[in-house]
């Protein structure tokens, strides 16, 4: 089966094998794509409900909506990943049935997944031609791969050696390689699902430039993002989905933040005024800590958080912020340095130690390290606190467990049919609330949150912010790592900026602007900053 599929690819590869340089010059064939009355139902849940939408040739068309609005489902249908329950897809006015990813690719539609579909162990060039390797006498033609991948890399602004293993590249660069791969299939429609969600501001900027270039080349880009700033910058038109239904399409002129948010959530969302806070004693102190991560080897890190204070750590991806939190939390034990809570020096060798000293960490990747996806809210919410709530002989305390889960569900306003509904079926925002609820059950004095709103929709985001503020009000010391500048400025009473494993500056609330943070995050010289 596998062999046959490869053979098909090879055949296709030969069919459309223009001399690569010519192809670089040529413009993509503009094409028109539309969906008519598309519905998709899974196990009784309607993910898409009678959606009709038209994408014009060569435009950047953003599709926005809260999590669970049906964006990703619609894109999967367009890319042939899953068939619609009802409705039709038209390409150039003709009905097409996109039964598989291969068929969609053949029709020039390529999807770039949220989770990258690349093989880290293979070189860049081999990734671009994965499954469509050019051959000579039945043997993979490595020279051709090398030669033919270069122009596609160039199209996305990369001057890479195609022989470099992909695993060595930063995630932002991998994303660009994925786009190059899509271009190499001769795609005239490229769908990008949250392409910047794990990129730093600079990488995201680079990606958006590539998107603009693609438009110039006549490629249609369907762009899914929660980052409304990006949508505003890129999109010619913006379509909004809500609860699986089509809401509206806005033209470039009428696109603004408030209008988009209103269409997405169906109501207005206010930004609360900045919090007023009186000086309070230091609750949590990290002194001269060196983590085992290579980026931190050069300089030890010191920082402190007062009772009731929210300190945001800004920086580019790869600045070593998550690694710092993981070391504080005992996942990768520190090499040297000291950690104090309320003036008491504490030893943290394991995560258990950290929890016993009332530390909590909401990790960066909730699916991978935050949740047991097949379990319901109840066992997830109680998992970190089981050790504290257990009775004699390690007996589970079912009463406490139920209480913890009920508390989490009401306090975090988790939308779930019951405390046993598997969390994998919840939306990203609700999943994140379960993770936060799990740590609330341990009654932390120091709460660390790593990218707390990644992949979370606007409404839930606001709720998570409110919750973090509420916890700070009740006296917890809070440390938030975020790559979204907006979030950093909104939440942080103080902003610590890191660059390549070092703290490059600390900004008070009124000093923290997008500009001042970016200067420190990229460590550009000539900017006023005071050291910690």
């Amino acid at each position, binding site marked *: 089966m596998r062999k046959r599929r490869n053979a098909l690819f090879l055949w296709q590869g030969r069919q459309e094998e223009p001399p690569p340089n010519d192809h670089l010059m040529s413009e993509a064939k503009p094409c028109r794509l539309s969906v008519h009355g598309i519905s998709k139902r899974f*196990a*009784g849940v309607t993910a898409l409900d009678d959606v009709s939408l038209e994408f014009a040739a060569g435009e950047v068309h953003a599709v926005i909506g809260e999590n669970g609005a049906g964006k990703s489902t619609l894109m999967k249908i367009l890319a042939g990943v899953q068939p619609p329950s009802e409705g039709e897809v038209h390409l150039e006015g003709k009905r097409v049935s996109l039964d598989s990813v291969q068929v969609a690719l053949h029709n020039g539609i390529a999807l770039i997944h949220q989770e990258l579909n690349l093989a880290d162990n293979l070189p860049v060039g081999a990734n671009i031609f994965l499954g469509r390797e050019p051959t000579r006498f039945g043997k993979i033609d490595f020279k051709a791969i090398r030669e033919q991948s270069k122009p596609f890399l160039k199209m996305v602004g990369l001057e890479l050696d195609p022989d470099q293993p992909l695993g060595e590249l930063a995630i932002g660069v991998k994303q660009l390689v994925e786009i190059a791969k899509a271009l190499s299939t001769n795609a005239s429609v490229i769908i990008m699902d949250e392409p910047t969600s794990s990129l730093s501001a600079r990488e995201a900027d680079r990606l958006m430039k590539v998107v603009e270039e693609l438009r110039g080349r006549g490629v249609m880009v369907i762009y899914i993002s929660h980052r409304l700033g990006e949508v505003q910058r890129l999109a010619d038109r913006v379509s909004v989905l809500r609860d699986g239904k089509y809401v509206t399409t806005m033209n470039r002129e009428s696109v603004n933040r408030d209008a988009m948010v209103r269409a997405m959530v169906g109501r207005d969302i206010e930004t609360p005024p900045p919090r007023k806070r009186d000086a309070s004693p230091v609750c949590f102190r990290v002194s001269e800590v060196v983590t085992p991560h290579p980026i931190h080897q050069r300089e030890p890190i010191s920082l402190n958080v007062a009772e009731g204070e929210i300190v945001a750590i800004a920086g580019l991806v790869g600045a070593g912020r998550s690694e710092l939190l993981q070391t504080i939390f005992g*996942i990768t034990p520190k090499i040297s340095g000291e950690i104090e809570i309320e003036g008491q020096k504490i030893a943290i060798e*394991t*995560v*258990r130690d*950290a*929890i016993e000293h009332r530390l909590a*960490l909401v*990790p960066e990747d909730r699916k*991978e*390290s*935050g*949740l*047991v*996806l*097949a*379990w319901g809210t109840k*066992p997830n919410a109680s*998992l*970190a606190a*089981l*050790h504290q709530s*257990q009775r004699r*002989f*390690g*007996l*589970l305390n079912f009463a406490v467990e139920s209480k913890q889960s009920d508390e989490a569900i009401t306090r975090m306003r988790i939308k779930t049919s019951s405390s*046993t509904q598997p969390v994998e079926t919840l939306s990203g925002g609700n999943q994140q609330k379960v993770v936060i609820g*799990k740590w609330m059950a341990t009654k932390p004095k120091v709460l660390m949150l790593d990218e707390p709103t990644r992949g979370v929709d606007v409404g839930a985001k606001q709720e998570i912010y409110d919750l973090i503020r509420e916890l700070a009000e009740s006296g917890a010391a809070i440390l938030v790592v975020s790559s979204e500048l907006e979030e950093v400025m909104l939440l942080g009473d103080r902003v610590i900026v890191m660059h390549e494993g070092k703290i490059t500056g600390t900004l008070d609330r009124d000093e923290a602007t997008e500009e001042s943070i970016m200067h420190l995050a990229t460590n550009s010289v000539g900017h006023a900053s005071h050291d910690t």
Partner: protein
Amino acid sequence: MNSFKKIAGVAGLLLFTLILAATLSDSFLSSFNIENLIRRSSLIGILSIGVAFVIITGGIDLSIGSVVCLVGCLTPFLITKWEWHPALALAAMALLSLTIGLTHGLLITKLRLQPFIVTLCGLLIYRGITRGLVADQTQGFAGGFKGLRWVAKGQIDLPGLDFGLPVPAIVLVVLAAAAIYLLNYTVWGRYMMAIGQNEKAALYSGISTDRVTILAYVICSLIAGVGGVLYVFDFGSAQPVDFGNFFELYAIAGAVLGGCSLRGGEGTIIGVIIGAAVMQVLKNMITLVDFFSSSIEYAVIGVVILMGVMADEAIRRFASRK
């Protein structure tokens, strides 16, 4: 809910094989055969409970049959040849199997070796050691030690029935109760389930994943040791070349039929015991029914397991499509 369905499924399969066997063979329902069937099902069920713990944490233990062989040969060897007091010999065997499990656990967690490889090497090593120690000679009790062997050979007369309840069934019930308690009512069981589902999330939740994983391997080997003792008590002697051969595969197959996922994090003790019973009924049926040549025993068992797993998958797909 889901686990209830799985138990119902495998119970249905057991019922089906029972009816099939009773229809095909007249002697299947004889009291002698039923008694024997319960005894053997209990023994394989005990082994399955052990391996279930390992499978639930996402691991595998291929060494069970060889541990059965090692313990099964050494027990009569120590008692008859070296004339150890039986209590001392049994204590030594418990310590031995515990050490084996601990070693597996340490190699898998601290050295990060793959469970498949570690326990595959165990499978080879323990059988090799046994054969070397006793020079391939059959070890047995020569008809003695009747009192001791009662735990495996004995039966308790049931009033009103013409057959007795084999003692291993009682051992099984006791072990199963302990296992259910550990798995469903203690933090340790919850931790094993969490590790099997998502080891990283377990680690981030403050669970000492290494310690819990080691515990699972210790339980598995310890129970394999118990199985080894019971088997040799039942048979009366053990030939190191083939004693316990394939037992690990029967135990694993029983656990999987009973609802354990080899991906970890799923499974119930009740299901596993029923799954093990299905295996034993099949074996029994092939022996009794002339229609099946006993040479094709493995093929029949393989086909039935495959059908069971396929039916499970088909039902799952059907349920998710609705």
